[in-house]
């Protein structure tokens, strides 16, 4: 069986220089940009950015609609979008555009009135590096999870979804190559909804699932035995 490689990552945040001053403007700009990393940034990269995770609105579009457009209805409609349910960022972008269009069609407001602050379209570069840590068994991985950097959690759990063939996280992919019992743990991890959680919370939940399925052998309080 292949060992599990612990990879870590860090983000460089880049301003595209594009900004939308109002709802119409945002709609038009989203139609023009075809850079998938922009959508990924505004839906997922917040987890690794030095920003406060908005407890109410999980993506930048919803947060902007609430805080800067003061449009609660639109904020709610955008906030409910779950990016992991879209197979590509292009589809997600189309859905956001549809929501904006439907909202503008509803009328009752001027979509060209400037927001309190513009929406800045951003993207990121992800720098990926091998920590050289290798884990041989699922139990060993379970014990290691609480010690994992948040960059590693992001890489193996969030970034993996756009990288793996199945669209699932690295933990599940690896566990599915083990026996039936480990596969069940893989399934449980695959069904986790990461969208309303911080990376710290995701790490805690992962650790809890490993302990629940694999028992004391995967309990982080057990001493690590065979990392290399």
């Amino acid at each position: 069986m292949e060992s599990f490689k612990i990879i870590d990552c860090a983000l460089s945040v880049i301003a595209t220089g594009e900004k939308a001053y109002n709802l119409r403007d945002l709609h038009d700009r989203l139609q023009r940009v075809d850079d998938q990393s922009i959508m990924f940034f505004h839906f997922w990269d917040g987890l690794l950015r030095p920003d406060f995770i908005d407890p109410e609105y999980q993506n930048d579009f919803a947060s902007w609609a609430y805080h800067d457009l003061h449009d609660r209805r639109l904020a709610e409609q955008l906030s409910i979008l779950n990016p992991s349910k879209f197979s590509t960022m292009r589809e997600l972008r189309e859905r956001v555009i549809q929501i904006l269009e439907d909202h503008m069609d509803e009328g009752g407001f001027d979509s060209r009135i400037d927001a309190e602050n513009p929406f800045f379209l951003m993207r990121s570069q992800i720098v990926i590096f091998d920590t050289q840590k290798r884990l041989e068994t699922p139990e060993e991985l379970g014990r290691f999870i609480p010690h994992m950097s948040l960059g590693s959690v992001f890489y193996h759990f969030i970034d993996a979804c756009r990288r793996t063939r199945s669209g699932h996280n690295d933990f599940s992919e690896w566990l599915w190559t083990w026996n039936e019992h480990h596969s069940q743990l893989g399934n449980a991890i695959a069904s986790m909804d990461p969208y309303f959680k911080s990376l710290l919370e995701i790490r805690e939940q992962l650790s809890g699932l490993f302990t629940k399925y694999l028992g004391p052998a995967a309990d982080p309080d057990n001493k690590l035995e065979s990392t290399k």
Partner: protein
Amino acid sequence: MTKKLEKYAEVVGENIIGQLRQLAEPLRGMRVVHINSTREGGGVAEILHRLIPLNKELGLNATWEVITGDADFYQCTKKMHNALQGDSEDIGEKLYAHYERINAQNHERLSPILSQADFVVIHDPQPAALLQHYPERKGKWVWRCHVDASRPHRPVWRYLQKHVNGYDAAVYSLPAFAQPMRNPLYIIPPSIDPLSDKNVPLPAEEIDTVRNTYDIDPERPVICQISRFDRFKDPMGVIKAYQIAKAFGPPLQLILAGGGAADDPEGETVFKEVQAAAAHDPDIHLLMLPPDAHRTINALQRIADIVVQKSLKEGFGLTVTEALWKGKPVIGGNVGGIRIQVVNHTNGFLVNSPEGAALRIRYLLSHADRMVAMGKNAKAFVIENYLLTRHLREYLTLMLAVLKGSRDRIELSSGF
């Protein structure tokens, strides 16, 4: 682990330091040169004093050079600085020519270092024109703009653009501060150093001494704003908020503490206005502190129950970060970088008026449990996001990204 990194590991955890080491590994031995215009004073010098030694401990061959100039040069660059922030400044051909001449002289002095550098970071406009002397440069050059250039005075920006467009990348503190340019615009927010005098944990006796020195009653609640006496920091608005809140009953004390205003004629005027407004209230402690009173400021922030930063215009607002780091809920003006740092009901409140600030002061004072919870959130937020180690990580990531080109994914394991 080396000594300095060990100390940071005690604050942020081994994980974070391990990550820095791994990111730095491909950069080990590289010649990295930072250039600014002053060794002492100002936020840029403060940050470089901290970053350079850490870069060295991580194995980078990092150095810091300072350009030299005369009074006319600094007059010109001061005008550029103000113009970047939106002031209408008339610089004129003669001063521009002088600016370029001084940069050329510095080029002659620094050429042996810069021509061999693998990575050069030029801070702010003062040394920006150095780049033109290195058309066949070996390394990558980035321009780091520390000021809010969102609405620059156009004629000056057009001139500066000629010099900064050729860089491999530009770095701003916030997306809102950036000017669209030809090169990639990286965003790296500033940070505070948890081990500096301004932020290090203080012994209780030292805090008590400061409390006694300024005659602050330990039995009554304290609100505090630390900032220059500047209209944009709205000290008069803070006094108004304090007065409104106090009228509802809490036996409040207010500390307004700021740096010297000797070189700032408007600062003196504002200070006098604030003095007049505070004159008849012994519970308003108006403190004019010397520039090196870092530990006193640290103590005052720790003495406060609530920290206020009721700015009307703000850059990033590092005084907010400092207060959050000390576990204090912050009531901040809904402007600039304060908006990014303060989230309503989570670690403080954003307000738009003295009345709003008064309302939030009253709310917090009557919800002691919320104040404690928000203080905890505040500290956790800074640990995760605004300490020097995060800043260093982003510089390392930036270097790797710029050296590797503009791809979205950069895999270091594939060789460097």
